[in-house]
């Protein structure tokens, strides 16, 4: 049970937690945050590995993830605003008109 394994396990747990959050939380913003959590989990493992390997690639990817995550949020927030504008609610369960 050394450090690396634990960190990896932690990252996996964070990743799963994020996904779980998307499943169980109904608040749109919270869901977004949970996605961020997933990405953070991934980052953790990336950093761990890149540090283990002493190789920059992982770090670079982490950097990219930062960028992407930022962009996604920047894009997601307005969409959420748009949603809210219609039903005065963040409850995602209210937004299930598309089905069947």
């Amino acid at each position, binding site marked *: 049970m050394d450090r*690396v394994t634990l960190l990896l396990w932690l990252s996996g747990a964070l990743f799963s937690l994020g*996904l779980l959050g998307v499943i169980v939380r109904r608040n749109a913003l919270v869901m977004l945050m949970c996605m961020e959590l997933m990405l*953070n989990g991934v980052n953790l493992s990336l950093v761990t590995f890149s540090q283990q390997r002493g190789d920059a690639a992982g*770090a670079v990817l982490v950097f990219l993830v930062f960028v992407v995550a930022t962009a996604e949020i920047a894009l997601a927030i307005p969409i959420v605003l748009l949603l809210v504008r219609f039903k005065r609610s963040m409850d995602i369960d209210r937004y299930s008109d598309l089905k069947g």
Partner: protein
Amino acid sequence: MGVIALISAALMLVIREPMRVALALITTMVMLGGIYGLLGVHFIAAFQVLIYVGAVMVFMVYVIMLLEVREAPGNTRYSRFLVPGVTAFAALVGVLGISVFRSTADVLSAPGAPAFSLTQFSSAFLSQYWLEFELTSVFLVAAIVAALAVIKVSRRAHG
């Protein structure tokens, strides 16, 4: 530190108030940043704190405050997939955990190389990963356009 990160992450799912959720997330992130620091990749830690906590979460918090949408009282904070979700979650954690624990990859047992410095990183970034650097810029441009478009749309929908 990892423990704290984990706990606060778990808390995210339990707390009702979006604001507090955000705070929990921030905690997690900071903790992670701390871990990165301990690992020795300080600049990543810095980025973590700057970009995430500094930019993203601030933005998030701002938005939360902006639209003070009170959830209609009485409706729970959980979707009806709580139970299956949690079970699946447990399974997933288990699976991932096992795949890590039972793995025979040398990297896990390796002592771990000396942490590389910011200069190494940036030089690598600008030489070996120059393409990515370029692409990132392109990507950002696209992202901005997209964001603008969405905002424009929402404005149109508004007016």
